[in-house]
């Protein structure tokens, strides 16, 4: 009997406490700085070009093989505006497959890729799974618009 009364008591006391629910779509709580959304590419604002040189390191290291990278000669380098000789030509990441393991960020020598730590890195539901394959422009868009709070590992 006592145990049953105890159960009743604790449920009643929980009822009188404040609910812990976060009212999500109306209230976005802050994501922690280290949040690992999905990977995005960073934009070198000084030179106005991506940091990425298309070195394939991330592509090779990715455990699930969800990236595709091609590189090209950097036109800005020819104009002496940039120190990068090669630059990324096309870059696809399949967000539908990425397991957000952070390996690509760790292997990149140019700090050109980072995990999105905003809500934009999470609210990505789509109706078609091909929409989850993002191309270079889409990958760069977040950082270009300065929506991203940079947190680079190490």
């Amino acid at each position, binding site marked *: 009997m006592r145990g049953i009364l105890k159960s009743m008591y604790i449920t009643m006391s929980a009822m009188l406490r404040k*609910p*812990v*629910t*976060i*009212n*999500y*779509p109306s209230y*976005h709580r802050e994501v922690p700085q280290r949040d690992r959304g*999905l990977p995005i590419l960073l934009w070198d604002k000084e030179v106005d070009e991506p940091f990425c040189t298309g070195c394939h390191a991330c592509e090779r290291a990715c*455990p*699930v*093989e969800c990236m595709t990278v091609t590189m090209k000669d950097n036109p800005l380098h020819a104009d002496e505006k940039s120190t990068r000789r090669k630059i990324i030509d096309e870059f696809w990441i*399949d*967000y*539908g*497959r*990425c*397991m*957000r393991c952070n390996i690509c960020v760790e292997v990149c020598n140019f700090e050109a890729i980072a995990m999105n730590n905003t*809500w934009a890195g*999470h*609210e*990505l*539901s*789509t*109706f*078609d*799974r091909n*929409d*989850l394959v993002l191309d270079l422009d889409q990958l760069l868009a977040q950082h270009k618009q300065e929506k991203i709070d940079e947190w680079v590992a190490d």
Partner: protein
Amino acid sequence: MEVSGEVTEEAAPAQTPVEDAPPAVVPPSERPETGREREQLLLTPVEVDHGKAVYREALPGILQIPADAALALARKSSLWPMQFGLACCAIEMIATYMSHYDLDRFGIFPQASPRQSDVMIIAGTVTKKMAPAVKLLYEQMPNPKWVISMGACATNGGPYTRYDRVLQGVDKIIPVDVYVPGCPPRPEALIDGFIALQHKIMEERGKG
């Protein structure tokens, strides 16, 4: 009358107790021989039949619009998912039902039996052994029904995409309405998926 041994033999084919058998009641003689063909059969997509509602033919067009709208509004406000977790994503799915995220706010309330559910959340890896069950469960849901593919595994195999026994995306067997990326997606991402689904229901009202 004697206690006959054939009783069980006669009763058996109708029941098809073999666990790996395709859900379609295929007589044993027509079953494919080799393992590969058999697997193909298991993995054929379901025939989607969204069914027809009588009112769509009977009601005059002018009345259909409010009926559609009312139904769509009700449907989007009361999406009952099936209690069905597969792998790691299931934990995040459960977390979404729980106090901190509380899917019940949107009227999303899990149901144990597919007969009473509207949405199937594929939360996790679908292996080829599991695929027939997923298909059968999908079929057993009453129309109208939707599927949310939660996480990388359900979307296209995710981390396990290189392994042979893992299905390369659940849309190979059942139609998927919303894909939620992530491994696992945050609870908020799942809620976002539900909101997307609600939009889709409103947009697609009156079709089919």
